[in-house]
């Protein structure tokens, strides 16, 4: 595990902390005093209906979107203040973040170069996400599932302490979903903080430790998965909370 603040090989655990985060766009409140914590060593599911504010929150944590008020930090600091951001937090917010005419290898080389990572990190990331065989294909010729793997490779290339994934299951086949489940579990067991937004309730039950439910820009529940479902199914509890109020 890399860390910008410690010697090589020494891991710095980093939490994601969102405090009283609000965002107003054109007079519409899209985030309303959102607060939650994602902890090291745990996979935190970030769930909610479409338009609930999940992606906006993830973008705010990464500094892509500005908060109107409140604060979002990774490892105690706003993400942009880290010197080697890719080694602090890896993010996959879209499967279409790579230029369609650039090869997968070229895309990862750009990401690696931006943070001073060696080319060996590119090869390692390609191997890790299982696309080494097609690494020289233009991204535009890759399937959605392969592009999703590439996005994950981009997030993991710096061996970050924190992983932020927005609907990473989109486009993945059954085998890849199982593979992702194993990877997320291993990353969390290795001490990393994993925050994943998904609509797949079965995957949340299978891999997540904690759940944050957001609806209409407000966090309506944040806590451990066991506490949340309390013997029922995730889908049942979630729909009960979100759709029936």
């Amino acid at each position, binding site marked *: 595990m890399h860390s910008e603040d410690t010697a090589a090989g020494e891991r710095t655990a980093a939490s994601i902390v969102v405090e009283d985060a609000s965002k107003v766009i054109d007079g519409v409140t899209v985030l309303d005093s959102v607060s939650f914590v994602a902890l090291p060593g745990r996979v935190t599911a970030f769930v909610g209906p479409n338009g609930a504010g999940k992606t906006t929150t993830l*973008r705010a944590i*990464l*500094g*892509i*979107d*500005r908060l109107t008020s409140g604060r979002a930090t990774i490892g105690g600091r706003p*993400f*942009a*203040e*880290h010197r080697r*951001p*890719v080694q602090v*937090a890896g*993010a996959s*917010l*879209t499967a*279409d*973040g*790579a*230029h*369609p*005419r*650039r*090869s997968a290898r*070229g*895309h990862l*080389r*750009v*990401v690696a*170069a*931006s*943070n*001073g990572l060696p080319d060996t990190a590119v090869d390692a990331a390609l191997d890790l996400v299982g696309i080494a065989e097609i690494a020289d294909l233009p991204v535009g010729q890759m399937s959605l599932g392969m592009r999703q793997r590439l996005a994950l490779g*981009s997030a993991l290339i710096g061996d970050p302490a924190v992983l932020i994934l927005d609907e990473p299951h989109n486009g993945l086949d059954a085998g890849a979903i199982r593979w992702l489940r194993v990877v997320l579990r291993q990353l969390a067991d290795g001490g990393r903080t994993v925050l994943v937004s998904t609509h797949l309730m079965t995957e949340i039950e299978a891999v997540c430790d904690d759940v944050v439910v957001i609806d209409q820009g407000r966090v309506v529940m944040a806590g451990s998965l066991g506490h949340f479902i309390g013997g029922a199914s995730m889908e049942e509890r979630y729909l009960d909370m979100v759709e029936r109020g």
Partner: protein
Amino acid sequence: MRLAWRAELLKIATVRGQWLGAAIATLALPAISLLVAATGGVGAGDTVTSGAATGSVAGLLAFGVWAATLAAGEYAQQTMIVSLTTVPRRSVLYGAKLAAIGCVAVVGALVSVVTAWLVVWAVLPSGVHHLGDPAALVSVVFAISAVSVLGMAVGLMTRSPSASASIVVVAVLLPKAAGGLLGGLQRWVVGASPGTVVTQAVGGAQLPHNQMFPGGAAAATVTMLLVATVVAVGGAVTLVRRDG
């Protein structure tokens, strides 16, 4: 900043259309100058240097549009999300983009003017035209750099490749085309526009007095660079303040 700059250069190098665009932009100026020289378009009063600069507007347009589409393309292709998650400090990202596009533009412009001067010198009948002052062609390098920076900044402001390319074309061509409408401002606006700056510096085709910048070619060049700097600052402010 150095790492981000390297990554920006690598972005250009790893997409064929992007480096090919820069290569074509580099060839645009000497190709047009060659065409003009080979078809007898260089007048008796022109020098080899002013003949070499006849393709300047093509070079300005090509580099400006290349820079604009490159920058705006980050939004059109959604690659800006990855750029902002790997280099989240926006001032660094902007500086890296500016440095990378500026480097390519400066190197490309230098290659352009040297090539143009050599091919025009080779094509024109010997002994008929004076060589002129080849050092004056540095104004072409300044003009191409300024238009490239403007293109990049406008690309990041509009986030639209077509809109930013259109603005570059207008910025290069409109001042001279619509100069008559500017009244007393014509000398200031047209005189400091990139194409006219080059013409004044190389001393080629005679410009009407009302299109000559007050204070001469050097002042015109400085004014053009100042305008490009102001637009670049506008681009930086936009990138820093707006949501990604």
